[in-house]
């Protein structure tokens, strides 16, 4: 068994930069490179794409990312784990094999993990949704239902020799936990180690968010060379403790402070960070400086998994209609306020049916609400948005903003309008047995 392994994070969201992943693959001394690219809603959108085209429904940047890192990974024996399969891991795996062949890297072993799609098993059931109501209550508005799978099937793929593992919905930390389970031979009931591995996975899963990305606040929290922000890697020991660092010479910084922000990111009860494999406990975690851009992570813990899986449920929720217009210079605020009142009145007069409507002035009250009277802004931008049952109704909102050009206050400019479909995400819990993880093998 290995004594320690080095795992890098090559992406923290679907649109993430590619260069830092190449830097990690070439200079990180890695054994594993993990790409986390699947936000909550992305899989529902991917499901819709797959319904239109059976070969679609995986991450748009899959080919570009694999193309960029595969030569270095193949040369050094670095194995890749990614959830870029989204709603179609099989088609994604075929694409990976195609890219490998194009690079002259034949014989690449690719595993696709399916079984997270539980829509058929869940549809029409009385399973309660966290947001209220039941799955049955969504009727034919249901678009997708994907369970967060755990690390075991990914570890199995790695044990079977997969050089690239492509998944759909899996718990983000599980993609990092799987190589540890595989390399160190951890039992799936070794709660303390699974907990510690989850801490490491959670710190890595958002890539640059732990190396100084989303951290800089000039004068208070400065980050050197943010433009060339490097992505993190962790050297993990067989006990699940780790040293978190980045490639020397890359931009950004790794300090206890950057790690603390990421440790708490999207966490509710830190004593019970619920994962498919373990309930991880972050309360005893220690983050100690260990040299330049290096932090030692110890003290994670864990208790038994709940036996339930979280499921993300996507459903049709109508249409957003939106319009924006700017006012600037002296009197900008008063003209913006007048424009807001005019649009509100016109939408009332045309009898717009919106489930929800919001009229804000960007620069005044669009983000954190009205505060104590601020200094007069030099620019404000009216933003009107509503959610409607039909695209036609949603279009009326942008139309009423557009018409402010000739029918509103003086000197408004820069109108933009849009109409877009709303896919809302809800969540529920299902028994783990509802998901049927399965591996499919391909060779380039």
């Amino acid at each position, binding site marked *: 068994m290995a004594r320690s392994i080095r795992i890098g994070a090559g992406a923290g969201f679907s649109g993430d930069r590619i260069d830092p992943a190449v830097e990690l693959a070439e200079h990180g001394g890695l054994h594993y490179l993990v790409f986390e690219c699947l936000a909550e809603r992305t899989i529902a959108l991917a499901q819709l794409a797959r319904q239109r085209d059976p070969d679609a429904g995986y991450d748009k940047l899959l080919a570009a990312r694999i193309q960029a890192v595969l030569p270095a990974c193949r040369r050094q024996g670095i194995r890749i784990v990614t959830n870029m399969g989204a709603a179609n891991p099989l088609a994604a795996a075929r694409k990976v094999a195609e890219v490998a062949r194009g690079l002259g890297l034949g014989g690449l072993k690719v595993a696709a993990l399916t079984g997270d799609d539980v829509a058929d098993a869940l549809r029409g059931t009385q399973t309660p949704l966290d947001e209220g109501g039941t799955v049955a209550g969504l009727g034919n508005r249901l678009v997708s239902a994907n369970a967060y799978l755990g690390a075991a099937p990914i570890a199995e793929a790695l044990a079977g020799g997969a050089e690239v593992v492509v998944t759909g919905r899996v718990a983000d930390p599980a993609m990092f936990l799987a190589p540890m389970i595989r390399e160190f031979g951890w039992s799936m009931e070794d709660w303390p180690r699974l907990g510690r591995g989850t801490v490491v996975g959670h710190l890595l899963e958002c890539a640059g968010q732990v190396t100084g990305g989303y951290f800089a606040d000039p004068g208070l929290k400065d980050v050197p060379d943010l433009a060339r922000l490097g992505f993190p890697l962790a050297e993990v020991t067989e006990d699940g403790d780790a040293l978190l660092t980045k490639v020397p010479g890359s931009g950004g910084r790794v300090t206890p*402070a950057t790690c603390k922000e990421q440790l708490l990111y999207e966490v509710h009860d830190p004593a019970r960070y619920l994962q498919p494999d373990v309930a991880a406990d972050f309360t005893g*975690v220690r983050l100690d400086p260990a040299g330049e851009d290096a932090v030692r992570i110890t003290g994670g813990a864990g208790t038994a998994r709940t036996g339930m899986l979280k499921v993300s449920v996507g459903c049709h929720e109508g249409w957003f209609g939106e319009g924006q217009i700017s006012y600037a210079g002296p009197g900008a605020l008063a003209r913006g306020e007048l424009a807001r009142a005019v649009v509100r009145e016109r939408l009332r007069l045309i009898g717009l049916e919106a489930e929800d409507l919001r009229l804000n002035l960007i620069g005044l009250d669009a983000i954190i609400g009205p505060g104590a009277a601020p200094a007069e802004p030099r620019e404000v931008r009216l933003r009107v948005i509503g959610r409607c049952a039909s695209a036609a109704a949603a279009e009326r909102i942008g139309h009423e903003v557009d018409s402010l050009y000739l029918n509103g206050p003086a000197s408004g400019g820069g109108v933009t309008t849009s109409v877009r479909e709303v896919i809302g995400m809800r969540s529920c819990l299902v028994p783990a047995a509802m998901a049927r993880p399965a591996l499919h093998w391909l060779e380039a």
Partner: protein
Amino acid sequence: MLLRDLAHARAGDKGDTSSIGVIAYRAEDYPRLERLLTPERVRAHFAGIVHGEVRRYALPGIGALNFVMEGALGGGVTRSLALDAHGKCLASAMLEIELPDEV
């Protein structure tokens, strides 16, 4: 003094719930944060934005408090009409909180 003078913060989202980690720059300031930055104080600061319960979890080992605010994201990230549907900016808004100066 502003909370921003003592601590930094990051916001995350799950459905209609915003969670904000507030971290003391210096370990010696943490007890003061724990004393003054109560869930009630945070709830009052976000009146009009947060419509549900505010829970607080303490992590004294790393000098941090984690706030979980329900009903904070306009009905949920994916259906919210808010410009910042994820409530990412709420972390900076949190740091606007005024703390009484202590001798």
